């Protein structure tokens, strides 16, 4: 019976799953999951409040990147994103796949030096990377069927995500690195250095560039191997 009682705390995980599935605001979901788990875990309401307080106080390091906002804001005020767009536009004469592979590299490198917010889906993928990749494919193969267009756009979004996720951890002051040191240093009373963690993100970053870059370059092959004639045949069969 006591065993079953302790297993009850796993209900907190269920609250998170159900909350996200119901598309509720993530802050509400996470807050509710914390309260439910704390109460089921045997904390009094007052102790739950204290847990939120100490949790907030000891995790302030995760949000400290806000200190960069005034200078980034100042630079954006004077056209940092426009300049980033001009840099991306220099690669516009490549094939679709090679262009997206270069975008992946650019996204990864900028994230690795802490400029994860300069490129992004709203800032550069929609206005730049996706249209340029489509234009490159059109230059090579003529007008694109809707399906192919969707495929190129999806890969443009994927280049941004892969570059960002596996680039940002190489930068030592990013939220996820600080979360690791914050959690481990408070829970296990050790002293882990963000720099060591960031270095260990490098092997996977290299793999990500190789794997996704290769898949993006192969996108060209699948476009030209199929060719407009093949698209027509496929459409006719369907």
């Amino acid at each position: 019976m006591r065993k079953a009682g302790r297993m009850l705390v796993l209900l907190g995980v269920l609250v998170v799953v159900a909350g996200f599935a119901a598309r509720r605001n993530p802050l509400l979901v996470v807050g509710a999951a914390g309260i439910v788990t704390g109460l089921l875990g045997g904390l009094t309401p007052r102790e739950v409040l204290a847990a939120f307080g100490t949790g907030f106080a000891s995790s302030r390091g995760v949000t400290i990147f806000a200190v960069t906002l005034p200078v980034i804001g100042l630079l954006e005020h004077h056209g940092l994103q426009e300049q980033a767009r001009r840099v991306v536009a220099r690669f516009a004469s490549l094939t679709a796949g090679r262009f997206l592979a270069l975008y992946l590299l650019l996204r990864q490198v900028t994230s690795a030096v802490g400029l994860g917010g300069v490129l992004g889906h709203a800032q550069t993928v929609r206005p730049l990377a996706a249209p340029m990749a489509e234009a490159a494919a059109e230059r090579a193969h003529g007008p694109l069927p809707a399906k192919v267009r969707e495929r190129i756009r999806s890969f443009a979004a994927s280049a941004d995500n892969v570059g960002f996720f596996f680039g940002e951890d190489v930068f030592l002051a990013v939220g996820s690195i600080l979360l690791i040191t914050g959690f481990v240093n408070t829970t296990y009373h050790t002293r882990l250095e963000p720099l060591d963690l960031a270095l260990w993100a490098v092997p996977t970053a290299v793999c990500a560039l190789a794997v996704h870059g290769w898949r993006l370059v192969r996108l060209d092959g699948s476009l030209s191997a199929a060719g407009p004639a093949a698209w027509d045949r496929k459409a006719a069969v369907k």
Partner: protein
Amino acid sequence: MIEAEWFHWLVGGLFLVMAAQMLTDRTNPRRYGSALFWGLLGLGFVYGTWVADHRAPAEPLGAAVLVMVCLAGFGRTGRGAPPEGAAERRAAGAERFGGRLFVPALTIPAVALACAVGLKRVHWGGGPLLQKGSETVLGLGIGSVVALAVGMVMLRERRISTPLHAGRSLLESMGWAMLLPQLLATLGAIFASAGVGDQVRRVTTAVLPGGSVFLAVVVYCVGMFLFTVVMGNGFAAFPVMTAAVGWPVLVEQAHGNAPAVLAVGMLAGFCGTLVTPMAANYNLVPAALLELKDQYGPIKAQLPTAFILLGCNISVMFLFAV
């Protein structure tokens, strides 16, 4: 000695100044809620100093956090209208300053790295110049202040209100999402104290045959992957799987290299982020932005990469970390 808490106060002060700006911004339809949210966050940053070293009760801060959660969760925060003529000014700025715009931006990581590697060893007045163990956070803070000075001089900007207003507008566009990582870290701590990690460990040890380090690596990485798919975020998965397998089995029993185990474990979670619709801002929002008919288009494009990289993470961890 330069202390980490000074920069927590600097960030708290920034939030308070920006909250005051929001309060007077009539273009924001929910200016009172927004100002209250960021004002509480700013106060919490300062008050948190005394909570962290147990000199003040944590309950008021906890109550403030729950108020912030409700304000944002029930849509009581909003954002102001961007200033007019912004697009022309940005295009003119890019034309005028060109690549020089990247210089202040790159100053931040350069200074952060210099602090983490170099200044760490500098002593001043009988103690280390930078508080021990906080060199990276301090580097980020010092780097931002230096970069702001470089940027103001380089762009010939005289008014300090320009970066403050521009920074506030960035803050408003991030909105409540800014608080989510901290709240997820808090949830992780509550999960840990309520014993969720222990329960997951009991379930995993029941499945896990004892003694195999390779299988433990697989369970940690695949567990991070699956938990991230469910929770939509590696941050929430990390404390649970680390308390269950990563720390007790891989670091303590197998004497693994802790930074390598934990960094690669987190990256295994990121593979999960690539394939889950729960991570809406990365996978569903771009599909909408790009006007895709198939809202799972980006996930489908990422699926093979995610699984190959999960395999890479397992290999890296097994070969180099344990």
